[in-house]
Each structure stands twice: as structure tokens, then as C-alpha cells.
């Protein structure tokens, strides 16, 4: 039997119910390799390319630019050139007949965040997937659990994946104490305790990477592995203009140039992403909390805490992923690291590499977990 592959709308992000088709990179009738980018999809955060699920001929395009397609809805069909048109037609008719769009209510229920009390603070998290082993995703400075919009769902097929809002961020308490990395490390420990998680795989982005390193050094028995994405703490340079600009921006036109620095491709930044960041930053207390945190990890125009020398002491497998065009923390920080760390640099991506090259990053993380200990 000849195989026909549907290209469907992915579910990026917990509340995503539909996606908008952007520009088609491939054309109908083209031969495509598995993994090549076919079409841009616009979500409520950024534009992201959709890759071919299999090699073959792009036989049919069913959604044009600006069409709204529900999650899991059919976008295109890939099949071998030898498959007759009638079979393709029958496949499409059959797919559409069986297709049941996700109810909005279900999407809302699945997207709901949970609050947990840790040391007098309320910490917000989202859990996806089930499994024997658990993963904790830790976002960076000024981010929140939505930083993992394109990763959490995709990585959750065999593991329980928790994404946390750090104190001062997202849906968690906005007050910080000292704002030090150690304070965050203790929050992470308290969070894992309250959920009864003894040991987790840690994935940290930017400042979240430095928190993951410090946690793994302080509590080696509780970290199974470490993935550090564009991590802080691996070198002295940092774009302090970004940090200051991000903290002080009150309006779109002030914030936009800062957020654009996070991506190699500036046009990925949507107005909605800017609005969401502003909504967070407007909350009473956020600006002063961000300032407190920044004053701890950033001093005199440089990173205050460099953990590079301590990496060889890590007791668990560790991997580093970096975007070659990172404008916040330079990719040079990924060079000359101790040999116990595997390093992957992705060209064409900026600081938010886990969003900008989500599919590649997800593949690298899943591969690292597999290789580091059979199956995580």
C-alpha cells in the first residue's frame, strides 16, 4: 500500500485552537525532503515554519495564505509521485470526513495554569504529558512559561513536562526578595518538593540556564540531566542595553526594538507578542522586581556570575544549544566548554532559539535525552 502523508496544523502552545497560514515556501508539485520548511504558520506569538513530515511530492495544498486552519486540520498532502490522483482525493475526503476540531472548551481546560505555594510565594506552572520521568523547563529573564510554547507540547509524548513561571514572572508572585539566582534555585527546589518530584531533567533558557546549573551543582542528586539553551553564566558579555530597555519600556514603540533583538529574523515578532509582554510589565511591582533581579546577575555592563569553571564538576550529562546570531548572549560563550558538555550551534537563529528553530531544538533535546541514558 502506498503511503500518503498529511501535513496538519500543529498545536503550538496550550491555548492554540487554530493557526493562520502565512507564505508558502514550497509549491504544489515540488519534491520535498523530510524536514524542509514548507510553509509559515502564524500563531498568537510568532511566525514559525512548518516542516515536511516525510519525503515525497507536495501533491496538494489545501490551505492558502491567510486561511485559518484548526489544530490538527489538514494543510497539505505529501505522497510519492506514483500515487494516483484519485487516491489522493479519496484520502482528503476521508480525512475531512473524520476530522473533529478540538472544542474551544477543551483547549481552555488544557491551557489552565496551576498555582502552588512555595515558601510563602505563589508559583505558577503548566504540566503536559505523563511519564515515569519528569522534566522542568525554566525560562529566562523577563520571560514566562510561554517561552516554551513550541517545545513543551512537542516534547511531552513520553515524559511529564513541567514549565514553571519564576518568581517575579508570568502568573507567579511578582515580589522578589534578594532577586539572586540562589533565591530562584531555592524556589525550584521548593517547587519540586511540593510536587513530590525527586529528580528531573532540567532545561533552562538564558537566566534559566544559569539557575539550572546552580541547581544541579547544589543538588546533584536531583538533576538527571541538563540542557542549557543560550545560557547565562557562561561568559561575561551581555547586551545590557537590552536588559535596561526591556525593564524601562512602557509602550510598544519602546519595547519592539528590544524584543526584536531576541530573534535573528525580526519579522517573526508579532504585535500580540509585544502586547503580552507589555501586559506583564504593566503590573504593579514587576518593573522593580525585574530591576532587582537584573542588578544581581548584571553588574557594570557584564554578567556578574560566571559558572563556566564549575561545569566540569557537573555529575550528570549536560548539553548546550545556542543560536549563532544571538544578540543578547554571544554564541562565543558556547565555545571551549569542558568536554563533558555536548554543544550544538544553530545557524540562522537568535537568542530565542527554542522558538525560532523549535523543531530542530526539540529534536536535539529528545536526542540528547535518548543518548545520555538510553531512554529518559
Amino acid at each position, binding site marked *: 500500500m502506498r503511503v500518503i502523508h498529511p501535513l496538519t496544523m500543529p498545536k503550538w502552545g496550550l491555548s492554540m485552537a487554530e493557526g493562520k497560514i502565512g507564505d508558502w515556501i514550497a509549491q504544489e508539485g515540488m519534491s520535498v525532503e523530510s524536514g524542509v520548511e514548507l510553509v509559515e504558520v502564524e500563531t498568537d506569538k510568532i511566525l514559525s515554519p512548518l516542516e515536511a513530515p516525510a519525503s515525497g511530492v507536495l501533491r496538494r495544498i489545501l490551505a492558502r495564505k*491567510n486561511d485559518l486552519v484548526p489544530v490538527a486540520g489538514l494543510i497539505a498532502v505529501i505522497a510519492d509521485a506514483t500515487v494516483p490522483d484519485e487516491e489522493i482525493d479519496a484520502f482528503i475526503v476521508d480525512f475531512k470526513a473524520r476530522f473533529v476540531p478540538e472544542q474551544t472548551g477543551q483547549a481552555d481546560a488544557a491551557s*489552565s495554569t496551576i498555582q502552588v505555594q512555595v515558601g510563602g510565594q505563589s508559583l505558577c506552572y503548566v504540566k503536559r504529558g505523563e511519564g515515569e520521568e519528569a522534566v522542568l523547563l525554566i525560562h529566562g529573564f523577563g520571560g514566562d512559561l510561554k517561552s516554551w510554547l513550541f517545545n513543551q507540547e512537542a516534547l511531552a509524548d513520553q515524559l511529564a513536562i513541567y514549565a514553571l513561571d519564576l518568581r517575579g514572572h508570568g502568573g507567579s508572585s*511578582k515580589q522578589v526578595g534578594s532577586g539572586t539566582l540562589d533565591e530562584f534555585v531555592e524556589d525550584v527546589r521548593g517547587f519540586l518538593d511540593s510536587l513530590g518530584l525527586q529528580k528531573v531533567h532540567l532545561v533552562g533558557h538564558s537566566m534559566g540556564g544559569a539557575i539550572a546549573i546552580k541547581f544541579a551543582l547544589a543538588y546533584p542528586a536531583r538533576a538527571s540531566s541538563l540542557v542549557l539553551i543560550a545560557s547565562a553564566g557562561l561568559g561575561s558579555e551581555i547586551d545590557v542595553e537590552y536588559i535596561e530597555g526591556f525593564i524601562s519600556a512602557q509602550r510598544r514603540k519602546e519595547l519592539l526594538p528590544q524584543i526584536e533583538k531576541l530573534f535573528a529574523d525580526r519579522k517573526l515578532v508579532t*504585535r500580540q507578542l509585544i502586547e503580552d509582554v507589555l*501586559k506583564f510589565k*504593566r*503590573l*504593579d*511591582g514587576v518593573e522593580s522586581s525585574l530591576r532587582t533581579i537584573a542588578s544581581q546577575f548584571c553588574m557594570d555592563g557584564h554578567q556578574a556570575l560566571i559558572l563556566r569553571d564549575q561545569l566540569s564538576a557537573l555529575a550528570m550529562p549536560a548539553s548546550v544549544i545556542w543560536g549563532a546570531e544571538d544578540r543578547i548572549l554571544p554564541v562565543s560563550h558556547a565555545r571551549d566548554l569542558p568536554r563533558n558538555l555536548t554543544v550544538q550551534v544553530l545557524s540562522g537563529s537568535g537568542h530565542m532559539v527554542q522558538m525560532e528553530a523549535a523543531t530542530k531544538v526539540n529534536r536535539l533535546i529528545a536526542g540528547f535525552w535518548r543518548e545520555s541514558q538510553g531512554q529518559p
Partner: protein
Amino acid sequence: MDRKISFQQAINEALAQEMERDSRVIVMGEDVAGGSGTDGKMDAWGGVLGVTKGLWDKFGDRVMDTPITESAFVGAAIGAATTGLRPVVELMFVDFMGVCFDQIFNQAAKFRYMFGGKAVTPLVVRTMYGAGFRAAAQHSQCLYPLFTHIPGLKCAIPSTPYDAKGLLIQAIRDNDPVIFFEHKLLYSVQGEVPEEPYAIPFGEARFIREGSDVTIVTLGRMVHIVSEAADTLAAEGCSCEVIDLRTTSPLDEDSILGSTEKTGRLVVVDEASPRCNMATDISALVAQRAFASLKAPIRMVTPPHTPVPFSDVLEDLYIPDARKVADAAREVVGYKA
């Protein structure tokens, strides 16, 4: 950000949180505490539509019922503002503002200027506006253009619960007099609102949707009418960019001009009477500053120049609806020079 509350609750929450945060914030107005001069229960009313209900319980005498004398209590609030308090005064219907125009136009609006910047007037006047409530000609007007016209006043006209809370908090923290407009038909609208206090800066419009064929600028309740029209138009393949002004003074000229330069077409939808309203003002702005980018004449969608009718049928006909907005957008998009 999962919590949804109504526009009315958002306003109540903004008042309660600011009163909690700052003891100088007081609330005054007719029946805001619950009916002055009666033996009835205090806090029974909370304003004519119950927006301030519950505040008297929490803040006692900082929530004051006033006599039905707008000129007196608005004047008193202005005096209180210049001498250290931060009053939020409720003037039930904007239609009644005429009896205290001197206090607002010639006193509150002028103090900062007349006293060489040495006086501040941190006053908020909350008021209901708008048609569709079957309340006839004297309780249904959209008078924000009158106040937008006066230098020294700021005007906020929220369309969603999120904006209502953030703009009201900004209004209370602002050192200038702010007229805060609440459309009667928006009170029950639900939306996501953070529990924490937050302030939305004045003079930054909100993009309701992005599009490439036509810019539709609007405000207040009309935002919802325009969104409905934009959905219809999107199904026809017409892509609308919809801008909610949020404040008319200060006005976000950059967003209006930038969007019109991008789409080349402009429709302005305003519930205020057509002479000297926001639609004429914005049309003039674009005609002066972005004329070269226009591919079609500007269209304004407004009510006719008549009092708001009392007859249900005529009132419905009077208010701009989604069909009229969609027709105007189709006309400018289909325009051939």
C-alpha cells in the same frame, strides 16, 4: 490571566485597589454609597447601575453620597484635588455635564496652565455615555468630543474590561483631570483581567486586528461593532486593520498615520454626532499628514445629526451597526479613481 470579569467589575476593582493603595483616593457622587438622606441600608445602590457597590463597606466615609447638584460636588472635588486628595467623582450621565461646565472647562482644565505648572488637579470624572439603552435624547449622548476639544483635560474611553481597569488606574494616578467614559452597554461585557493592579499609559491605541486592505479607527462601544464587521469582511477576503483609540486626548496619531500609510484606506467609526467628532478630527489628521498614501477617499461612519431617538426602531437605525461599517469598508476598498 485566566480570570474573566465584567467591564463593571473591572471598574469596581480598579477603584477598590487604588483606594487600598492610596488613602488620598476618595469617591463622590449621587448614590455611590447607597442613597443619601434615607433611612435605608447604606451601600444598597453603589451608583445608579451599581458600579461602586461594595466600596462603602470597605472604605466608609471615603465613599460620599452627594446632593443632586453637579456644579457643587464636581466643584468640591476639583477643590479637593488641588489641595491634596485624589477624588474620583461619578457624574451619572455625561449629558448632565452641562450644569458644571465652568468647573470642568474653565477651572479644572486650566489650573496647571494658569498657575505656571505649580498646581496639579488629580481629578477623575467617571461618566456614562452612549445610545442603545432606550434612555432617550437626554441620557444617550456621546459627548467625548466636547471634552477632547479642551486643552488641559484628558479623555479615556475604554472598550474592554482589561482596558477599563488599566486606564482607570492610570487616570487616578495621573496628575491632570481625566474624564473617564463608560458606555452603558459595555458594563456586562466579560474579558480577561489580571487580579493585580496595572496602569495602561495614555496615548497608546490598541490594535484589535492587523490587516492590509483598510484601516478602521474606532473607540468605545463601536470597537465591538467594528470587530463584527471585520469578521464579515475577512470572510469576503477583505483584510481590515482595526485600531481602538483607548484615549482621545492624548491621541495616538502615530498608530493612525502608520496604519493608514500601510493600508492606504481609512474608515473612521464614531458613535458621536457627526459635526466636530472624533471621525472628523481623525479624517483631518490623515488628510493633512498622510494624503499621499490614500488610495481612496476617507469614509466616516457616524449617526445622523439628530438627537438620539426614543423610539426603539429609530434608535437602532441611528446607531452605526456592523452592516454600515462593512458597507463603508467595501466602498473604500472597491474605489476606482
